């Protein structure tokens, strides 16, 4: 059987790609489309490094089949910054030194953006539980929580 022809929208752009049934959305983003900002840390949905949004909902792209992207709106780390304007989360991750090695950072930023869309003023506990699916081994999460807090404040116009 031939590969599936997938028509989708990625970060607002009409995109097509071919994939096999077993290929995950993460495989397709990285290997077929060269969007390597989404990282593979576990391929079992336990680390969140591959976090993307599908039709606005936060998911692990390693747990979505590439073919399921057909007709869907995909959002990845590559689409977070508007042109050369960094997203407030990106700015505050830099300002607060919320990354050390940086491998988990794309997933955290995608997940945190989704959090702030649902809840513009989360408590520390809400942040920690929303981000519990994103593993970071470097920072102990402290500076990540601080970065999300200050980004949220900026986005609320405070």
């Amino acid at each position, binding site marked *: 059987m031939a590969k599936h022809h997938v028509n989708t929208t990625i970060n607002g752009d009409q995109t097509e790609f071919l994939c*096999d049934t*077993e290929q995950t959305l993460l495989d397709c983003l*990285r290997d077929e489309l*060269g*969007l*390597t*900002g*989404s*990282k*593979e*840390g*576990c*391929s*079992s949905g*336990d*680390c969140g*490094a591959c976090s993307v949004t599908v039709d606005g909902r936060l998911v692990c792209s390693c747990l979505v089949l590439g073919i399921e992207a057909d007709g869907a709106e995909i959002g*990845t*780390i*590559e689409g*977070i*910054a508007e042109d050369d304007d*960094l997203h407030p*989360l*990106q700015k505050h*991750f*830099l*300002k*607060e*030194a919320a*990354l*050390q*090695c*940086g*491998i*988990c*950072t*794309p997933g955290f*930023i995608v997940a945190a953006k989704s959090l702030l869309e649902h809840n513009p003023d989360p408590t*520390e*506990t809400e*942040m*920690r*539980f929303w*981000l*519990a*699916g*994103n*593993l*970071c*081994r*470097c*920072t*102990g*999460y*402290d*500076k*990540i*929580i601080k970065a999300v807090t200050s980004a949220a404040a900026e986005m609320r116009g405070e």
Partner: protein
Amino acid sequence: MGKEEKQFDELSPNVQANGYRVVGTRPVRPDGIEKVTGKANFGADCELPGMLTGVVVRSPHAHAKILSIDTTRAMKLKGVKAVVTSADFPEIGPKQRGAGEAPVSFRDMSRNVMARDKALYDGHTVAAVAATTPAIAEKAASLIEVKYKVLPYVLDAREAMKSKAPVLHKDVFTKGVDPRPKKASNVTQRFEFGMGDIDAGFAEADVIVDHDFTAQCVHQGYIEPHACVANTTQDGMATVWCSTQGQFMVRNYCATVCGMDISKVRVLPAEIGGGFGGKTVVYLEPLAIVLSQKAGKPVKVVMNREDVFRATGPTSGGHAYCRIGAKKDGTLVAGELTMEYEAGAFAGSPVHLGCMTGFAPYVIPNSKSVGFDVVVNRPKAAAYRAPGAPVAAFAVESALDLLAKKLNMDPIALREKNAATEGTKAAYGPKFQKIGYVETLEAAKNHPHYSAPLGPNQGRGVASGFWFNIGGESSAAVHVNEDGTVEVVTANPDIGGSRASMGIMAAEVLGIDVSRVKPLITDTASSAYSALTGGSRVTFAVGQMVCVACDKVIVQLRERAAKIWDVEVDDVEWVAGSAVNRKSGKGETLSLAEIANVAGKTGGPISGQSSSDVQGAGPGFGTHICDVEVDPETGRSTVIRYTAIQDVGTAIHPSYVEGQLQGGAAQGIGWALNEEYIYDANGCLENGGFLDYRMPVASDLPMIDTVVVEVPNPNHRFGVRGVGEVPIVPPLAAVANAVSAAADVRMADLPISPPRLLAAIDGK
């Protein structure tokens, strides 16, 4: 402070309290934007035209003789381009050394990279295949037929030391015992450190405490799996792109394991997604090189998470017995520490470092630390933050907690009374130079956390830790660009923001704005040799080379200015980023940029390089305070407050220093509460994934407060000691002491998982 900084004091308006313009500030890291936008290229992100996918075949047995490997069916599969087994690698003799020094046996390393006669742990590589697609490669791997004779296995150090235990290596005869054994065993070496006479010491003690402790092997847990791409050409050249803590290490190890000249291997470091010591050896790179040689195409090999858990890391777990004797007033008179560490499948646990560090923070006239390095059927232990120190500190700092209770003494007061200071003879022999242990205890005592009230089922624990910190062979080059911007070129992968500290130090020495400095990390062909990133050495040792290279640049800048002004070099001073003409008396100046603009007319490129074996690293000490709350009905413990205090010498970029303290504390908390390897009845790993290997997630931890103590290291330009290792030393005992206080029962076995704690509570 050096000469030029003094002049900043006089002339530079924006100098800070610490006397520096840039050191101690918090600029955005130079590689930050790439990393928050997903543009940074990590190990698995490298792509070459015509690239094949490599897949590794791993032993399903904990211990087995390899009878035969039949690759014919795999080779017949369409799309398969190469298969390799141990037959494709040179046999390396026991005495054979790699070029240069490395703390490894290359014979063992080559047998860890590719099993020869025996598979020594579940996941041990036995073959590898390269094919045109991942699916074909996976299929081919499943077609490689390996016949095994399964052997009895052993996982625990004390079990492996028993006379009836299965022996992993016929040629291992325990070193360091008298008489030398005639029989092969799993104990590769006995280490002993100490001073005085412990029997006499314990005889004069008023109070003696002792206890047995166990800690499990734990994985470094970096989120990025090992990944590499190798491309070889018919002239015997190999180019490797990989995620590593040291491109020169990879070059040397690959050349040795594959039997190549070092000059034929070039290694380009990718951004590294965490290492913590786990990426200081090679696993995939030699396989990729040989696969590429046989296939004539580039080959990419990436581990999955299960491979990472089964076949890489961990650091050693093991057993420790600790006995401490003291006078009524708390003065320590004797200490005894006996430890058995699991080295994994090959010799080389860090047990000797455990022996050296355990009692190091204290003045103990009579001490004896004995360590046994024991091979077991687990992956070969790799370095992990302060290798060997955390388990020893867990035993010693827990025993001190018992002692403090017995003496009814405040645990910090007890440590203060016996704390090592400048001139103290360390437990491992030599005398300490300037150190800041007492300062961390002071800071802990005065921290509001230490006096905060506790609620029901809550307990507080305190523990300290020590690490040597190291220097080593390092190189740096500094190039002045035509427009006056500056490139700082080093060859040490940036795991936690070291580019930022290199840039800061260069800006400080040159006297220019940090935004004008671009730190770069290059491959093995573009820099002189530099030892790997690890042991908390980069900001200290490589940073020192950056400073020296900048000095050389300043000399040239002054020479050029002298030429322009027709004066002697000695008449030109370098002040706050400009040459100042002291001769004319008019205070003429030429900025670095102005000199750079005309460099072509005044003698060509301006550039400085420095390479040296940097010594004089300053020992580091830390003290942590931990509060936990336990649920007495379920045995769950929750860390509710945590404070990490450490003498770092000087913090070049305080944010990344704090980050090291917080990250190390979090790893230590995981080690103490939940992380462990779980093996099934056949010695195969059962929890090789993030779901059941339970590293702390965001909701498991509180904010981690830090206090950065700065007792400058006299041997570094800016007083840097090194930061990254110490923070994982105290947490095991800090958490265990806190849980023991909260549950009123001593928890001496890690991890303190809910079933274990509940059993202890019910057993009271």
